[in-house]
């Protein structure tokens, strides 16, 4: 969808995923889209060094989110929202409808 603008499929995957889920990490993004985690990681690092994303660590995982101080954040979010609305319904639901509430350890499904 945004590949012609962003220059690569992974760039779009990373931004759309993080917009839809608020934050994410390379392996998780790669799993959802069926891509290569190393390439996704490189793209995440590229967006971070450009000031578009910020990251924090949780245990051994580096979690990325949109940089609230990015000057074009509002416009970027509008663009991503529009792009997401063009995704096939199943894919959009898969991205947006993920469990976010806590799950107690050992709890059966």
């Amino acid at each position: 969808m945004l590949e012609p603008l962003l220059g690569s499929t992974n760039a779009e995957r990373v931004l759309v995923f993080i917009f839809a889920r608020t934050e994410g990490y390379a392996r998780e993004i790669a799993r959802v889209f069926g891509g290569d985690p190393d390439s996704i990681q490189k793209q995440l690092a590229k967006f971070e060094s450009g000031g578009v994303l910020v990251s924090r660590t949780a245990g051994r995982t580096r979690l990325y989110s949109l940089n609230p101080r990015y000057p074009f954040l509002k416009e970027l979010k509008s663009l991503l929202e529009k792009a997401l609305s063009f995704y096939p319904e199943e894919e959009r639901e898969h991205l947006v409808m993920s469990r976010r509430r806590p799950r107690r350890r050992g709890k059966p499904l």
Partner: protein
Amino acid sequence: MKSIKEMTQGELAAFVQSRLREKGVDVVLSGGAAVSLYSNNRYVSLDLDLVNPYFVKRRAIRETMQEIGFREQGRHFVHPDTQFFVEFPPGPLAVGAEPVKQVNELTFSTGALRIISPTDCVKDRLACYYHWDDFQCLEQAVLVARANRIDLHEIEWWSQAEGKLDEFRRIRDQLTGREK
């Protein structure tokens, strides 16, 4: 000219900027080092954030930095004779969603230093406090606000544009030093 070893933070920033300017690379000091300068070193940052507002290629910056003895180490440039290290965050030069309109120029024996204004420096620190609840950033904003002439109305207007007017109202008296 002083040696790099003898340079203060401001002198070093002015020196690096001047050398880059000779090569057509225009950068502006922001971040923690601006807080150090505007708070008369009541807050100390070893990191010199020279924002690269026009997205000049890193190779051009690297060449100049190497000419004056700096070595690239990840995102930073380090020098054996100084504890200060230099970083070139990407542009645009902005505080939150708003572009920085006014850049101040301070004169040092080592050259002219282009630096964000005290008002923008306060906004820059408040952005960090507003978005990440970072109380160190609030403390830095207060140090700069109390040591300099700042435009509080401008900061209020900007806070509103950032959707943080309530937060601004809560900390306003800290900035002005009129705490109850």
